[in-house]
């Protein structure tokens, strides 16, 4: 799985200004050309400050234009994800949690990944305990 991370720092709420949108379009097109031998882009994740009210509409339009799923994640949720999981995350679960959410991610995606991680970890611990005897 390949995904793009776009880091954005802004004092005010992030609203995907026109110049950012243009740059992101160019960037995604460029990546598409050079992506081999990696798998195609599954989604683009913009990580930044809090979102503005108009962001969702703009992301929706951009998503349709580019044909790639785009999500915005406030940095605090990415931090929450790291705090909740004491290890690596499964790439499939990560992408599934992100893509099942709306264009602007909430802490739901963190909860989804964390609960999947916990289930797997518990099963693994039990399995190791049984194997060791």
């Amino acid at each position, binding site marked *: *799985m390949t995904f*793009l*991370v776009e*880091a*954005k*720092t*802004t*004092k005010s709420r992030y609203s995907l200004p026109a110049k950012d949108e243009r740059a992101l379009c160019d*960037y995604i097109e*460029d*990546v598409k050309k*050079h*992506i*081999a*031998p*990696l*798998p195609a882009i599954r989604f683009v994740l913009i*990580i*930044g*400050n*809090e979102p503005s009210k108009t962001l969702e509409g703009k992301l929706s339009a951009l998503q349709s234009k580019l044909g790639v799923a785009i999500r915005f994640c*406030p*940095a*605090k949720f*990415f*931090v929450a*994800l*790291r*705090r909740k*999981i*004491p*290890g*690596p*995350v*499964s*790439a499939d679960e*990560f992408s599934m949690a992100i893509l099942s959410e709306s264009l602007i991610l909430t802490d739901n995606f963190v909860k989804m990944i964390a609960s999947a991680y916990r289930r*797997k970890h518990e099963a*693994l*611990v039990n*399995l*190791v*305990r049984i*194997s*060791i005897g």
Partner: protein
Amino acid sequence: MAKKKTRRSRLKRTKSQKENLLKKLRQLLSVDILPSLSPLGGIAKAIEAVLLHRVHIIFRPVAKHMFKNLPSALTISQEIQVRLPGRKGKAKFLECFIYYPDQPAEETEALFAVAHELGHIFLHYDIMASSGKARRYVELVEAVRKKKREKTERVFQVVFTAREEMEADAFAHVIAKEYLQPGGPALAFALPKAFPKRKKALTVSVAPIEYLRGIKAEAMFSNVNLAELSQLASRAQGIIKKYGERSVEKVFETQLALLAQSLGFYWFQPVQDIVRWICFAFLIILPSR
């Protein structure tokens, strides 16, 4: 006499146990890892499969007793052929498997192990070998092991093109912090002209659970500053004062890169330099019970 005999038989037993484990590891590599690695799209799957199903179950009980007195890294390498875009014919491909026991000697030891594995790969790769630089690289890695600072800098010159790139790499970050004094001579990260076609190494790092639970000062992802990330995103006044107006974006990117690596993702930057060859240094750390 009896004591000597017991010791000899114990050594013999340990040797045969080690050989058995090596055999199992080789089998794991050829049966489970290699098929998943080709095509390259299976990388993530291979890592997950290894981590979640095989290694824990097969090796944990055995390894605990056997690896106490062994070096923290174990290399098993095997050549496979992979067709890579932009190259004529097939490229040689070498992977390294680093097994890290439950109770490592030191975190830095593991990092040297990774550097050492990279040395094998560089040595193997024909561009390096034909230019005669490979031997030098291995010497440099040895110098890193012996903690010779000036040679360490040269190792980074070979592996990374820019300081930013190094700072976004979890392994390199730690080594650099450990061995390069602050305020020392600026490092020239430009690759020597002998390597016109830049090759990138990709290290796959898996966050060890122990490190993340009780992060130590120089542990692998201790440079991830979770408390600052949101402030960086919002360009908080204190953050601008700390890093400077222009550097905030870069620091934020670096922090995200490290964070993504700590979650088990590989990080490419920038995308135009996408890898033409990939080397694997699997650092597998088993969770404690």
